[in-house]
């Protein structure tokens, strides 16, 4: 993220990015920074400060020690792979700045606050705590918006102009759904974007400018998430023993809810997406069968753009090649090409349920 900010000339603090493997070689870089220092674990998600993953250090050796300690820790179940050591600036004032997607009305929002360090949800609850400006995609960031933000934050326009324009460019170019600078700090060196976070739209991954970012993202995924992403499934690992596979996010979620309510324990959520053919269904089921924690699979399919016959073919192929002995499978099949789907399952010695409730009950019985 910091690389992108530097590329777009957003003023940021001087820093060194550390990896566990090359930790020892980083001392030289850290020695080039002015002390005191601040050490921050690079993690996905929010709440890093509260988890104790941001610490101060008075000298390079101490920073290295803190980094070492961070590399042994986890955040939201993920290993910490990068740690950023930067110059600790004397902060006169902390502010907040972000761009995000607005769903209604459709467009973008520019958010600014005089208070930094807190999350935007908190800010929006304080009266006057948050300035919200709607941006039309065809209009873009206008001069008056920059003036409004500078006036609201109480900083000279020239300090904020460059940052705002670059952030907007980054937000649009990289298809962020949320791009957040928190804090945006007024320091003795002027206004700096001291901490940066963002969410990039998965659906933009084919954009060439995003190749590098997505390559790094993929390198950090576990095998399940990676193969799921490559195949276009949406997968969430849970801690129970029952895998829930459905076509469409809403249906799969409702199936998960029904499984939980019936007293079973969901262990995996897999949304096939729309229009899955036999090959995709086969791949999805093989992926599920590879999971050690799964002993029951509930497949809930309502055919629309997805064809029930294709699904049935995929199920038969997966089960005949993997031959799971201890995994119980229940299939609910309904909709487009349902009769053909049922015939295919029947010929393979399987049957399909008419309703979700029946399928869930059969797994519990």
């Amino acid at each position, binding site marked *: 993220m910091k690389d992108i900010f530097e590329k777009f000339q957003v003023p940021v603090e001087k820093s060194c990015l550390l990896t566990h493997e090359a930790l020892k070689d980083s001392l030289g870089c850290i020695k080039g920074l002015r002390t005191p220092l601040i050490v921050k674990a690079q993690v996905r*998600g929010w709440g890093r400060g509260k988890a104790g993953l941001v610490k101060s250090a008075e000298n390079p050796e101490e920073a290295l020690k803190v980094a070492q300690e961070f590399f042994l820790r986890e955040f939201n179940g993920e290993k910490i792979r990068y740690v950023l050591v930067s110059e600790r600036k004397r902060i006169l004032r902390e502010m907040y700045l972000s761009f995000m997607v607005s769903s209604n009305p*459709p467009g973008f929002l520019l958010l600014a606050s005089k208070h930094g360090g807190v999350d935007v949800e908190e800010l929006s609850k304080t009266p006057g705590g948050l300035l919200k400006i709607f941006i039309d*995609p065809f209009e873009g960031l206008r001069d008056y918006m920059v003036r409004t933000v500078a006036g609201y934050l109480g900083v000279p326009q020239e300090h904020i102009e460059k940052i705002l324009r670059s952030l907007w460019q980054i937000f649009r170019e990289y298809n962020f759904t949320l791009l957040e600078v928190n804090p945006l700090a007024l320091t003795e060196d002027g206004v700096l974007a001291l901490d940066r976070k963002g969410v990039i739209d998965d*659906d*933009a991954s084919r954009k060439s400018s995003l190749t590098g970012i997505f390559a790094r993202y993929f390198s950090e995924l576990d095998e399940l998430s990676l193969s799921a992403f490559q195949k276009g499934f949406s997968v*969430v690992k849970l801690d129970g023993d029952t895998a829930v596979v459905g076509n*469409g996010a809403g249906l799969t979620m*409702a199936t*998960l809810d029904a499984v939980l309510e019936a007293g079973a324990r969901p262990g995996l959520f897999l949304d096939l997406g729309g229009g899955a053919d036999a090959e995709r269904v086969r791949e999805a089921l093989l992926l599920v069968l590879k999971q050690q924690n799964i002993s029951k699979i509930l497949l809930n399919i309502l055919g629309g753009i997805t064809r029930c016959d294709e699904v049935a073919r995929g199920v038969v192929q997966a089960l005949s090649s993997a031959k799971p002995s201890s995994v119980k499978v229940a299939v609910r099949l309904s909709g487009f090409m349902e009769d053909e789907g049922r015939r295919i399952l029947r010929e393979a010695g399987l049957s399909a349920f008419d309703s979700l*409730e029946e399928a869930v009950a059969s797994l519990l019985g």
Partner: protein
Amino acid sequence: MAILVDEKTRVLVQGITGKQGMLHTEQMLRYGTRIVAGVTPGKGGSTIVGVPVYNTVAEAVDKHPEINTSIVFVPAPYAPDAVYEALDAGIKKVVVITEHIPVHETIEFVRYALSKQAVIIGPNTPGVISPGKSKVGIMPGEYFKPGNVGVVSRSGTLTYEVSLRLLASGFGVSTAVGIGGDPVTGLSFEDVYELFARDDETRLVVLVGEIGGTKEERFAEYYAKLSSKKPVVAFIAGKSAPPGRKMGHAGAIVFGSEGSYESKVNALRRSGIYVAQSLREIAEIVARVLSTPR
């Protein structure tokens, strides 16, 4: 009556020669939808399941001025361009089935449609069906029978599930609208409810939402302020989803309390909307509300 699509709907299929386009054109025709033309650049002059194919939307509209609705089956990288083409040719209703369109691009064509007083349904939608009149979408037609329940949903397959359950309990549907599963869609719950409110046939609205975003909360806020209202029965999928994880849709993610199941259910209840705890309960509540004299 019905909303958005009815017996007067005349449809253009964009991407008609693709696998999905062809298959569902056939399905829609079988349902009785009046499909008059298709478009695939470079495939003009051919005929697909009896429907003439043109190279451009302008050409199709020129030959068939009765076209008033377009359905887009074009793959994500080219879908936005197809939407602009339809809007520029003067089509006022565009149903975008395509999923995985980057949200920045969706925002652009939705805003463009607004400037043209046109309506975008979707993207990532199963479409719209007014049972017995017209189906502009990919839903299994046999799940929907004519009736007086309006259905509006963020989820495609869940729309089928809900309608199937209504049907099993003896209720039919006036129109079922999939607004689309993406974080940004052309139609909001409020937009669709407003259409249902003006539709004589619709006596009650079933709203199918899910965790993530604030679409349901916004609807609750809007509904609370209405002076006269039709009853709304809501169901929210994702009660059991763990926070911070994306559940399938780009839109289905919960950060903090924002967009959570509880936040949605509380907002809906406070506004006088019935909330079904399970799929089964939807039809039960509908039966109860509709049997109460108005």
